[in-house]
C-alpha cells in the first residue's frame, strides 16, 4: 500500500467536536429551562434584572446541570468499561453490587435517621455501602472455585446484589409507611432534586479521577476486552490493568448513585449508541459515550424538573425516554451502517 493510503490515526477531537458543542449547548440552554418565573423558560435577561432568577440559575440550576452531566458521564463511562472488560454487551454499571449496595445504604440511613435525615448522611451511607458492595463482590468472586475470572466476578456481583436487594426489601417492610417508606421509595426511583454546589463537590473527588483513568487508558481498554490468552500474550498485566479501569469506572458510578439514587438505562444504552455511531474502537467510543451520556442525562433531568410542578423522579424519565428512544433509534432510523 503506498504511504499516502496508510489509514490516518483517528482523533477523538476531530471526530467528536460536534458532540462536545452539543453538550455545551444543551448545558447552557438547560440553565434557562425551569419553572421560574413561569413554566419552561427563564428569559436570559432576567439574570441582570431579577435577583431571584440569578440566584436560581447560579445556585440551583448550574450545580444541578453539572451534577446531571457528571451522572450521565459516570454511568455511561462505567457502562462501556464494564461491557468491554466483561466482553458482554448486556452488562451495566450496577453489575458489581454497586447499585444495590448504594440502595441498601440509603435505605438504612433513612430508616435509622428518619425521613428528614440530612442528604449528606444518606449520601455517605450509600457511598460506603456501594463501595462495600464492590469489595464484597470481588472477595466472593475470589473465593469461588468455579469458572473463569469474568464468570466469577459476574456471579459474585449477582449474589451480592441479591443480598443487598433482600436487605432493601426488609428495610421497606420495617419502615414507617407514612414517613420513611415514601422517602426510601423516592430515593430508589432516582433523582437530583436538592442538588447544591456541595453535591457537586462531593462528586468530583470520585468522578474526576475515575473518568480520567478511563479516558487515558481508552486504547488499552480494547486490549482488556480480548480473551485472556490473547491479552496476556500482548503483554498486558491482566488483573492489575482490568482492576484499575474497573475501580475507576465503579468509583465514579458509585459516587453518582449515592447522590442521585438508582438511575437506570444510561449505563446500558449509551455505550451501544456510541459504538453504533462511532465504531467499537474505544479510542473514540469511550469519549463518545461520555459526551452522549452527559447530553442525555442533562436533557432527561430538564424534563424531570420542568415538565410538572412537582418533580418527576429522574430514573423514571431515563427509563421511559431511554427505552422508547433506544428502540426507535435501533429499528427505525437509518443513521448507521446496518450490521
Amino acid at each position: 500500500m503506498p504511504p499516502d493510503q496508510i489509514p490516518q490515526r483517528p482523533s477523538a477531537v476531530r471526530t467528536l467536536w460536534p458532540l462536545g458543542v452539543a453538550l455545551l449547548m444543551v448545558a447552557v440552554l438547560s440553565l434557562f429551562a425551569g419553572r421560574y418565573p413561569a413554566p419552561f423558560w427563564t428569559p436570559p435577561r432576567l439574570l441582570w434584572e431579577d435577583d431571584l432568577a440569578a440566584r436560581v440559575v447560579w445556585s440551583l440550576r448550574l450545580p444541578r446541570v453539572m451534577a446531571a452531566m457528571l451522572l450521565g458521564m459516570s454511568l455511561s463511562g462505567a457502562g462501556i468499561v464494564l461491557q468491554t472488560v466483561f466482553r458482554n454487551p448486556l452488562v451495566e454499571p450496577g453489575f458489581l453490587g454497586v447499585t444495590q449496595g448504594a440502595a441498601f445504604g440509603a435505605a438504612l440511613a433513612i430508616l435509622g435517621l428518619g425521613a428528614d435525615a440530612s442528604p449528606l448522611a444518606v449520601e455517605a451511607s450509600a457511598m460506603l455501602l456501594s463501595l462495600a458492595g464492590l469489595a464484597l463482590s470481588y472477595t466472593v468472586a475470589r473465593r469461588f472455585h468455579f469458572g473463569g475470572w469474568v464468570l466469577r466476578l459476574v456471579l459474585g456481583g449477582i449474589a451480592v446484589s441479591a443480598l443487598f436487594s433482600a436487605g432493601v426489601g426488609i428495610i421497606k417492610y420495617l419502615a414507617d409507611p407514612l414517613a420513611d417508606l415514601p422517602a426510601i421509595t423516592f430515593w430508589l426511583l432516582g433523582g437530583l432534586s436538592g442538588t447544591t454546589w456541595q453535591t457537586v463537590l462531593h462528586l468530583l473527588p470520585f468522578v474526576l479521577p475515575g473518568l480520567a483513568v478511563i479516558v487515558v487508558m481508552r486504547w488499552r481498554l480494547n486490549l482488556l476486552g480480548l480473551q485472556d490468552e490473547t491479552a496476556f500474550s500482548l503483554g498486558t498485566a491482566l488483573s492489575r490493568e482490568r482492576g484499575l479501569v474497573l475501580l475507576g469506572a465503579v468509583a465514579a458510578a458509585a459516587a453518582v448513585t449515592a447522590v442521585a439514587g438508582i438511575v437506570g438505562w444510561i449505563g446500558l444504552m449509551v455505550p451501544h449508541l456510541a459504538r453504533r455511531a462511532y465504531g467499537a474502537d474505544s479510542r473514540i467510543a469511550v469519549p463518545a459515550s461520555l459526551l452522549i451520556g452527559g447530553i442525555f442525562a442533562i436533557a432527561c433531568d430538564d424534563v424531570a424538573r420542568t415538565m410538572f410542578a412537582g418533580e418527576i423522579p429522574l430514573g423514571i424519565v431515563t427509563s421511559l425516554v431511554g427505552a422508547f428512544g433506544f428502540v426507535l433509534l435501533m429499528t427505525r432510523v437509518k443513521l448507521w451502517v446496518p450490521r
Partner: protein
Amino acid sequence: MTEPPVLSLRDLRFGYDAAGPNALRGLSLDIPAGATTVVLGANGAGKTTLLHVILGLLSPQGGEVWIAGRRQTDRTRRESSRLVAMVPQNEHIPFDLSVLEYVLMGRSPHIAILDMPSQADYEIAVESIEAMGLQHLSHRAVPELSGGERQLATMARALAQRAPILLLDEPAAHLDLGNTMRLLGLIDVLAKQGNTVVFTSHDPSAAASVAHTIVLMRDGQVLATGPTESVFTSEHLTLTYGVPVRVATVEGLQVVLPGRIP
C-alpha cells in the same frame, strides 16, 4: 545446527485441578531457533497446555521454561510479549472492531501503557494485513468475517507483534485448502527469515510439509522428537494416535494414510 535451542523446557509438570500434574507429566524438550517445529498429538495430549505454559499464561507446578537464554519468569510480561507471540485456537471478539483496529492491537508490546498507536504502528499493521492477503477486508468488522478470514486476521495480529517466536495453536483449523497452503507458505517464509515457529496441528501431512522438527505428544509427555525425516514414521504416528496409520511418500511429500476403521 550448533545454535543453542531458543526454547528449552525442563521437566514441566502441570495439572488443571487438585488431582495433580496430569496435563503435562515431566515434559522436557528443546526447540531449535529459526526453524519450524510442529507439535502433533491426539485430542487431550496436552498440546495447548504446552503452548500456554511456554507463553507463561499457565505457571508450571514443576520444571522450568527457558526462552532465549533466560528463565521465562525472569522477564517482565512486556519483555516476554516482544519475544513470544501467540495465535489462539479460536479467537472470539464480542464487539465490531475492524480488522485494522484489531491487528493494531498486536503493536501493544511496543506502545507505552498510557500511549496510543503511532503512524509507524499503523504502517506495520497494514504490512501484516497485506502479508495475510486481507487488505480488501481492512475496514470490515472482525465478527462479520468467515471463520477462515478471522483466523488469518488473528495471524496478522500476531505478525504485527514482530516477535521472533510465534506459537500457533492449530492455525489451519478453520482454513480451506487454499488458505492452508498459503498459511504454511507464510510459516515457511517466517522461519527462513530467522523466526522460530511452533505450531500444533491435527493435520500431520500438512504439518510435515513445512516442519523441520516434529514433536509427538501423548498423555502430557513427549513420545518422540527430532528432525521430520526420522520421527515422521508409521510406528511413531500409530503410537501417537492409538490407531493404525501408515506414512506413504507421494511425489516426495510424506502423507499419512489412516488404517482401516476399527
